[in-house]
């Protein structure tokens, strides 16, 4: 995708300029229950303006319900929230919806209408000025200007998703909620959507991204939160990794060491170790200090070192670790 969103100017609908230190979203102890079932419970977080915030969780964790609640489509059961500077109340629904956009998981386009007709309808619903100009800018952002006259029904799934994204950009939203934006897309279309989100991020758009694709969140988000009915963790991906996993070094050697205990036991930075198929994994206090000392000790002990590298735990490892904890906690 080559089109890049233009620098965003706050629209008339988004005229409440944020003060320094303001948050695009402030959520405090928000809960939503459907009868006896909690969709999400006691959720609190803040999202700064210009931040790309990932909201992760398994299917049924309450991600979409959270988005719908913050988008005033459904009412919270308890708790408070401020969305784009406006208190979340039933009366404020139209004002909040004028300042945000939500791209649902399913594009929800009128398939018999053209791309242009779809966007004209939504420009009218947002009561936007300069309709043609805005539509052209939005379509240019998603690189679809040349398809404006095509019926949406004739577009591929990936292109429909891009039209939905153009629709979500029409009103220059203060907060853009993207609900599983790459769900069901092939790798090429997924990469195009990722590139577009990256462009939006560079333009300072606040993005609330729900996904269960962890590599997507890791690549795109400044911070992530992991939801499993309750909020389990929140922070930068690096922070989450550090919080959940001990730092470690993976060492590969040509042949196992005979006097391993003696070699490693003499290194104060090494807190523990275990043997792996091709070497050892060492728990260390600080990999930067431990690696040179370890290399020296191994060479002195006559080991043939193939590699020494810090273990990289992916966000997926963090996520699975958390969900495993959930499963363990629920076990009688």
């Amino acid at each position, binding site marked *: 995708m080559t089109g890049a969103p233009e620098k965003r100017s706050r629209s008339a609908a988004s005229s409440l300029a944020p003060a320094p230190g303001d948050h695009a979203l402030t959520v405090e102890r928000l809960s939503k229950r459907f009868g006896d079932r909690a969709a999400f419970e006691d959720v609190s977080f803040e999202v700064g303006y210009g931040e790309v915030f990932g909201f992760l969780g398994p299917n049924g964790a309450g991600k979409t319900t959270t988005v*719908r609640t913050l988008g005033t489509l459904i*009412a919270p059961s308890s708790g408070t929230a401020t969305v784009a500077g406006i208190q979340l109340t039933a009366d404020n629904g139209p004002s909040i919806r004028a300042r945000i956009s939500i791209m*649902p998981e399913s*594009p*929800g386009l009128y398939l018999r209408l053209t791309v242009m007709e779809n966007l004209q309808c939504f420009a009218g619903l947002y*009561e936007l000025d300069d309709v043609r100009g805005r539509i052209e800018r939005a379509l240019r952002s998603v690189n679809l200007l040349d398809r404006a006259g095509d019926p949406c029904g004739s577009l591929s799934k990936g292109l429909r998703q891009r039209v939905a994204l153009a629709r979500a950009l029409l009103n220059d939203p203060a907060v853009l909620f993207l609900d599983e934006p790459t769900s069901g897309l092939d790798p090429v279309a997924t990469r195009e959507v990722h590139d577009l989100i990256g462009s939006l991020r560079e333009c300072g758009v606040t993005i609330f991204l729900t996904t269960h694709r962890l590599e997507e969140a890791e690549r795109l988000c400044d911070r992530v939160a992991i939801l499993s009915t309750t909020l389990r963790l929140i922070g930068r991906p690096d922070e989450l990794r550090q919080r959940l996993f001990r730092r470690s070094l993976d060492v590969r050697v040509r042949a196992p060491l005979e006097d391993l205990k003696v070699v490693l036991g003499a290194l104060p930075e090494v807190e523990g170790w275990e043997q792996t198929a091709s070497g050892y994994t060492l728990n260390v206090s600080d990999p930067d200090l431990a690696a040179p000392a370890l290399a020296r000790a191994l060479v002195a002990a006559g080991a043939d070192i193939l590699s020494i590298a810090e273990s990289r735990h992916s966000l997926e490892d963090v996520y699975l670790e958390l969900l495993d904890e959930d499963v363990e906690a629920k076990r009688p």
Partner: protein
Amino acid sequence: MSFSRRRVAAITVKELRDYRHNRFVIGTMAFLPLLFIILPIVQLLIAPAVAASPELTDRVGLSLLYMLVIPAVVPSTLAAYSVVGEREQGTLEPVLITPIRPEEFLVGKALAVAAPTITIAYAMFGIFLAAAKLFASPVVSSAVFAGSHVLVQLLFTPLLAGWSIWVGIAISARSSDIRAAQQLSILASLPPLAIIALMQFKVITPSTGLALALAVALLIVDTLGWRAVAAIFDRERLITGTRG
């Protein structure tokens, strides 16, 4: 934020464009009225040319009643589709995410159904009157144009359409299945027509007062319908399938 005509217009224009692209909708809207106009015209053409006979009065009454079936029945399926159809297509959520109010959404939908319905109903009535004038015997033609027949038809056409539209949209807003909504909507469009039929066939003695009372009742339903339907329009239930 106040009631926005622009948002109403956005919904109406979108709906009309959707009809235009949907041959099935256009076909159904055109076919049903044609079916309903053939029988009344045939009734007139074969009516005995005997002045002021009860049989002639009944035939004319029946023919005019058929003409009122058009505004009552034509909009009911479209109105019944309006909310539940969008919900099933997955297009309702993106619309409700915008600042649109339920009242604006509903009025936009109602206008989009009312415009073609009333146009078609008046066009069919015009064809019926032209056929009566040109091809029926002078006695039959005079009976059609006698008294306040034409005025009553012109008055009741939009009133009946309004009733059917609001009842259809109300059913659509509370229904979870398109077919059930359409069947219920057709049934619900009939009660006012039944009253008019009883008047046409003198089961209820027709009078100007009764006709006016019925017209006023329909007018109240039509003008307040959007408020009533907006009150039962549950955004949360429509999005999640669960009562809000």
